[in-house]
């Protein structure tokens, strides 16, 4: 066992990424574990402090309350990486490409022909009752028919050791800059633990992103003339670091609403040499704030007339307006059916079992099994309004069920979801902490998956909450490239067990589980 740091390592109810149930090291982690054995606790502390300093100096921080005292914190970075073998990654990658392709076809359909609604793949009230459905997009087809150009899909490894999809993020998913920065820091402070054949590099992301943005430009613009910009809400947005990071890495202007003007259904930016045309806008501003003429009139972040320029085909907006309908929590329930309907394939990455209250028999099931389920509002995030059945009082359950009956469209329910842990250093040694996985998927003329992901980890013992806003941290994510010699029978996905023991032991530990976003 490496360096004594694992002396008190105790596995939780779910599977562990590094260790088998019997405590042996899984194949993907073997080369890493051999190298980590040269570290002891003091060495770990030294490396961690170097990593923290590098992140602080690079300004990869968020501000705690007012800047008056200038208290800045880094997002906690944990040095033990998530490691995924090449074979398992190939499966995840194929599953993600399948899912994003199907969701893009679904978006094109709900805003145009609406075959999937006529054929009852997704109930009409689920689509038209969603606040994210944008009337301004009806009858409009964006270049190449792509809506979700940049997607981040949240996965967890469940009791059965399979990756399952927890949630799709198709509007303005953030976090990819941390993937790139975490790798930069990891290579700098812990070069000695990387495997001999290396891991899949991540630096390609910005050039892939730019190439994709150029692919979806308005068809009448040549690639050489095409000007791409990133639209940010500004320096006080919590993801501003990422916006400026991507602008810098791609070498494109980072603009705010005030920098853009529209004239004759075209978009221009205000420069020292006069007005310059803009053709592709990678916006990190929500739909509602994009164009005060089309949406919220009080928006200071948007550009008046942008929607008209977009619909006239003179500018491409990524992700498309109205994409939120496809990552709605109720629509999520129907994604496996969407994949079967549009691609005629079985989903490679399963959903978490989900019951939608809008479907009468499922509402009945929720009512009968409320004690065993997690019941969630469909369009709230951050764990707000979530009912954890096993821990809730009778009154609270009755209250939630009444709210559900009043507005079935707004409620879903899922069984309590157990997920895997990764060793994470705390105080004196390594402890098992739950972690999720958010890969990033780009779609232009074709679909590409970044061979890494954002791994977010719950830092509190026993916690299921990985959100950075609630005390979560992050890890580097390694996709191995040259591990074919590994015995396939040893990979986690193929040593699936029923996991019923694990599930029953875990049911008392949950807080606001799987609150992601």
């Amino acid at each position, binding site marked *: 066992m490496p360096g004594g740091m694992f002396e008190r390592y105790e596995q939780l109810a779910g599977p562990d990424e590094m260790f088998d149930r019997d405590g042996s090291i899984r194949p993907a982690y073997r080369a890493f574990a051999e190298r980590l054995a040269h570290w002891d606790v003091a060495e770990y502390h030294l490396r961690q402090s170097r990593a923290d300093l590098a992140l*602080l100096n*690079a300004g990869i921080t968020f501000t705690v309350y007012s800047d008056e005292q200038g208290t800045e914190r880094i997002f906690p970075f944990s040095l033990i990486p998530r490691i995924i073998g090449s074979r398992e990654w190939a499966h995840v990658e194929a599953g993600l490409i399948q899912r994003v392709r199907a969701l893009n076809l679904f978006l094109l359909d709900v805003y145009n022909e609406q075959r999937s609604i006529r054929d009852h793949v997704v109930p009409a009230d689920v689509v038209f009752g969603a606040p994210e459905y944008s009337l301004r997009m009806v009858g409009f087809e964006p270049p190449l028919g792509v809506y979700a150009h940049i997607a981040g899909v949240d996965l967890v490894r469940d009791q059965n050791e399979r990756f399952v999809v927890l949630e799709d993020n198709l509007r303005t998913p953030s976090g990819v800059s941390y993937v790139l920065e975490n790798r930069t820091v990891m290579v700098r402070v812990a070069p000695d633990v990387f495997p001999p054949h290396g891991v899949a590099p991540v630096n390609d992301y910005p050039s892939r992103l730019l190439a994709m943005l150029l692919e979806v430009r308005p068809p009448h613009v040549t690639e050489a003339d095409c000007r791409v910009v990133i639209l940010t809400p500004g*320096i006080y947005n919590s993801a501003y670091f990422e916006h400026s990071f991507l*602008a810098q890495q791609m070498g494109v202007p980072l603009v705010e609403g005030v920098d853009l003007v529209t004239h004759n259904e075209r978009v221009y930016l*205000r420069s*020292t040499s006069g007005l*310059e045309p803009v053709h592709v806008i990678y916006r990190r501003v929500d739909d509602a704030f994009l164009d005060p003429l089309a949406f919220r009139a009080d928006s200071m972040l948007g550009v008046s007339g942008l929607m008209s320029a977009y619909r006239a085909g003179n500018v491409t907006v990524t992700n498309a307006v109205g994409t939120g309908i496809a990552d709605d929590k109720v629509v999520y329930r129907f994604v496996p059916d969407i994949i079967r309907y549009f691609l005629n394939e079985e989903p490679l990455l399963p959903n978490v079992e989900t019951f939608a209250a809008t479907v009468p028999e499922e509402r009945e099931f929720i009512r009968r099994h409320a004690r065993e389920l997690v019941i969630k509002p469909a369009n709230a995030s951050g764990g707000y309004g979530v009912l954890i059945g096993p821990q809730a009082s009778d009154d609270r359950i009755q209250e939630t069920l009444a709210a559900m009956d009043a507005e079935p469209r707004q409620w879903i329910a899922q069984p309590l979801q157990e997920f895997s842990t990764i060793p994470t250093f705390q105080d004196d040694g390594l402890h098992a902490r739950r972690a999720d996985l958010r890969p990033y998927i780009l779609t232009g003329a074709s679909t590409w998956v970044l061979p890494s992901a954002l791994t977010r980890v719950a830092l509190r013992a026993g916690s299921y909450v990985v959100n950075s806003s609630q005390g979560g941290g992050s890890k580097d994510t390694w996709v191995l490239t040259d591990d074919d010699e590994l015995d396939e029978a040893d990979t986690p996905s193929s040593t699936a067990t029923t996991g019923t023991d694990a599930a029953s032991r875990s049911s008392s530990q949950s807080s606001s589980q799987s609150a992601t976003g």
Partner: protein
Amino acid sequence: MMLSRIAESLYWLGRQLERAENVARMVHVDYHASIESGALVGHVPRTWDALIAATGAGDSFAKAQADDPGRSPADFLVLARDNPNSIRSIVGRARELARTLRPHISREVWEEINTLHLSLNRRTSVSEYELYDLCGSIKRSIETVFGLYDNTVLFDEGRDWFRCGLFIERTDMTSRILDTKYHLLLPTALEVGGPLDRYQWGAILRSASAWEAFRKGGRGEISGARVASMLLFSSDFPRSARFCVRALLRHFGNATELTPPPQRVGPQRLITILDLDLAAMDIRRAMAIGLHEYLDTLQSRLIEIDRALANDIFRALPESV
């Protein structure tokens, strides 16, 4: 192609960094001067007052001292959060600007500015004996930023705006440093040219990083006229008003190569005339006007140029597409 908003931010980044460096240098020099000349004339606070006046914070310091008579002038100049012209406040603004400018400056430049900001922010106080080292390290850090900027950032329009800001601020600060002598009244008129007078002019040379340049230039014994002449009209000293305005004119010309003439011509005219005036002026005539009055006029002309840049270029509304 450069966003007007970004051009303006780069201009202000240059200004703020140059300002912070100048204040650090003035404190650095005056720390010594205040101790030594205190021995000569017996009233230490004078130099601090002059210094605070030079940063434009005289009134707010008087107010702060009324609230708290024990308020340290050194702390007020370096770390005070309630003084918008303390080094910490200026560096804080530079860092906020640098944050919006991340895509336009290199990682090296950003990290140096950010590290300086973080180190100043961590400090709660500065004692007298730390002042010299602290200001020295601030100065070095900002000079490092300038060096990194030169060697890691693209030679494009943005660099010229950054330099415009740097040189207009340097002109302004040099004139303010020179003007501190106006606030340092000698006990009697008889002492003009005496040891204290010479000492004070020497401190001004050091505040402007001009001591060695003055010596090398073979300009003879230190006197008010000789020091002021070098800091205002030297064509080869890189902090003199004349040198800086010439540089401002050159960088402005580069930066606005593609700017439509109606937007460009206003500030261009103001800078050109100031450049011509500085070349034609000499110290004898400036002193005939009165050095303080001459410096006052110079400062208002810089304000006019700054206003023209903002109105005509950075915030101009486009006339047509």
